[in-house]
């Protein structure tokens, strides 16, 4: 019964996250003034140097005649000059970029803080607890494991104690992984 609850809770959470992500994408696609451009590259022609023109035009107006202004060549030469130019319509979403970079930086910052907490603050807090293991490689964690198991049996029911228990288990898992990857040098790639 509790499995069913837990499962639907996770399903709801995943659905919320996905909807949120989709919302972010849709919101970010809202075009702002700056986010479209028509870029025309014109190579050197006779004695005129090459030039790049960046203008804010819609897709149907994105051609040499609208964008290249002021026209550097006289009227009869315009067609020849425009044949050399290449115009491309580009759009981007500056909101997406902003949101993505800021979310990424906050995730990295949060991980960094948590890492510093685990490496520096946590051992100080847990100095008096007998079964915690520091985060460097343990050669004989086999001895520690019976102790850890017996203490993990006494599981409290409050949320905090359960979080503690989950965190201890996670730390043990990471330690196992670290032993596999760094000490025994398996999983090299």
């Amino acid at each position, binding site marked *: *019964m*509790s499995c069913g609850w*837990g*499962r639907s*809770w*996770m*399903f709801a959470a*995943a659905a919320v996250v*996905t909807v949120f992500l989709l919302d972010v*994408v849709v919101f970010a696609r809202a075009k702002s003034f*700056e986010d479209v451009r028509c870029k025309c*590259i*014109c190579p*050197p022609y*006779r004695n005129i*140097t*090459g*030039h*790049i023109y*960046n203008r804010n035009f819609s897709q149907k107006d994105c051609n040499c005649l609208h964008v290249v202004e002021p026209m550097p060549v006289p009227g009869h030469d315009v067609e020849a000059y425009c044949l*050399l130019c*290449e115009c491309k319509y*580009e*759009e*981007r*979403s*500056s909101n*997406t*970029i*902003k949101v*993505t*970079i*800021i979310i*990424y930086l906050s*995730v*990295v910052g949060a*991980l*960094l803080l948590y*890492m510093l907490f685990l490496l520096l603050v946590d051992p100080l807090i847990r100095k008096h607890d007998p079964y915690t293991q520091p*985060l460097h490689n343990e050669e004989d964690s086999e001895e520690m494991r019976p102790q850890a198991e017996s203490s*993990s049996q006494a*599981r409290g*029911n409050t*949320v905090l104690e*359960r*979080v503690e*228990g*989950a965190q201890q288990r996670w730390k043990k*898992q*990471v330690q*196992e*992984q*670290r032993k596999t*990857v*760094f000490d025994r*040098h*398996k*999983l*090299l*790639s």
Partner: protein
Amino acid sequence: MNGAGNLMDFLDEPFPDVSTYEDFHTIDWLREKSRDTDRHRKITSKSKESLWELIKSLLDAWSGWVVMLLIGLLSGTLAGVIDLAVDWMTDLKEGVCLSAFWYSHEQCCWTSNETTFDDRDKCPQWQKWAELMTGHAEGAGAYVLNYFLYILWALLFSFLAVSLVRVFAPYACGSGIPEIKTILSGFIIRGYLGKWTLLIKTVTLVLAVSSGLSLGKEGPLVHVACCCGNLFCSLFSKYSKNEGKRREVLSAAAAAGVSVAFGAPIGGVLFSLEEVSYYFPLKTLWRSFFAALVAAFTLRSINPFGNSRLVLFYVEYHTPWYMAELVPFILLGGLRRPLGDSLHPGQHRLVPAEEDHTAGKYPVLEVIAVTGITALLAYPNPYTRRSTSELISELFNDCGALESSQLCDYVNNPNMSRPVDDIPDRPAGPGVYNALWQLTLALIFKIVITIFTFGMKIPSGLFIPSMAVGAIAGRIGSGIAVEQMAYHHHDWIIFKNWSAACLGESHRRLEYIVPLMAAAVTSKWVADAFGKEGIYESHILLNGYPYLDVRDEFTHRTLATDVMRPRRNDPPLAVLTQDSTTVEDVETLIKDTDYNGFPVVVSRESERLIGFVQRRDLTLAIKNARQKQDGVVSSSVVYFTEDAPQLPASNPQPLKLRRILNLSPFTVTDHTPMETVVDIFRKLGLRQCLVTRSGRLLGIITKKDVLRHMAQMMNQDPESIMFN
């Protein structure tokens, strides 16, 4: 209180039950398949009872497609995030955008009107660090300061990457594809596709690529996509409880990963089919394609590169090819393997040496040292200073009149005549020669540094470095060929095909199918002549995974009796009898040996086989019995028959363990050729197989024995197979 308790249940440790597997063990494919068939049959029969059951059965059928949709969405989103973040952080090493710090160089100058034709990268809003800090843009002092800050940023990124990997998720290092191949073949590696691994891999991949190291993000993207697959599997019991079905979802997720890496959904499906999947039922073909499409579409809507492109380098062909050019295509195809070998066997020799060498013992220092050297040597050469994807993109571009790259410094003579094929022939200007020797240095640098980079404890792929090596070599070759072939400058098409032949990927028009096939087929023939292993198989061998490749052919004439255990001098086979072993005997047997299972025979005199019982099932059942059933003590008899044996009343209560007995173990006779045995193991995904003669049990062959035997036959070290 109860409600809160139920919500927080996911924090509790999952209770191990009889059907879960232990870490680093192989799954039993047949059992998973039969459990899925049972489940399906139960749902189908219940669906006739009521409307609600019918709806539930429909939901069950559609859950596969829902999982694919979710995987595609999340993989596409993560790939878009990775692309955008890499773009920004790579440019962060050189400067910063003053108007909005989150813009990369190209995005910062996007709306600027002050870009000129020759200096199309410069704009006043984006300043290099030296210019920002001291106000000087040019000069030796500014160059040195830029150089120093470039190295500093690179070191910071890579240090952060390796620390995060080490502290949070050590499984996030490396490419991930060899391990995923092994997992898909039935191996269990707990945590390899977990949530923390997903998070850390995404975050540190960006850091690793941005630090300028010679690695790619395509392999790690497959790992990320498979982690997404695993994540969504846990939402549906159809996939979370069945390891076989889970692997179907994972192969589709791998296809989605390659699809977002290269912008090629079909390429993703083919890669999954060829490289990664083990059992690939045809029904997952459509699901993989669906997931790959959804992922590509999601990535496109995030639009990381602008212009609605999905990858940074996009190959376009505007010029036709000539029959005479087939010869260089074929030649270059033949040269692909030796060049690739210079990258990959270098790694084979280096990686085992690293384990014993000091560098392997200090992973953080190793990463910092390699990053420092890479940044130090990469900055002066403009081709290595920028990211590898941008380098490939520049090498791939057609030199039209609009390009201002040094590679395209051909002398434009406005009065020249245009021949019939409409391709003007132009002599090379000084910029081209300059570019050629810089590219040569870049090639040597890339080859050497990639050997040291792959295998470090950060996420790293090797698609992009391989492509870069191929593209550089091809461009150099065609640049030199320009001289010989009298200004026919459309030869750079040759190198484009070669660099693509380096990978076997292709997103080009059908027009070039013939030269491409010629190069690819020649490349494959030459490669097979050198040796049949790819880079991923080599890493699987190095790590000693029990991976039975479907493509290896076993052509020796050994028999089952040559491979089975126990051998002549070994102690006899450890068996259980059907009704005369006590609980104490069983426990001693479990403690003294480390076999994964025990055959059950009628009695020790007649060794007729009844079935096979797994070690884990036995341990759990006895532990449960001791705790829960009354009267079960050490001298209780364990029986596997339907009815309890006739015992005097003074004996303690016997323990029935028939339900954990597998009554249909696979058997072969002792004269079965090993060819057949290997085929059976491969096709059915067996873990062990019993050997009988005239109905009597003789011995056992496990997957490890098969792999050791194959290694021995191929003169490899049979002791390198580590896992069971």
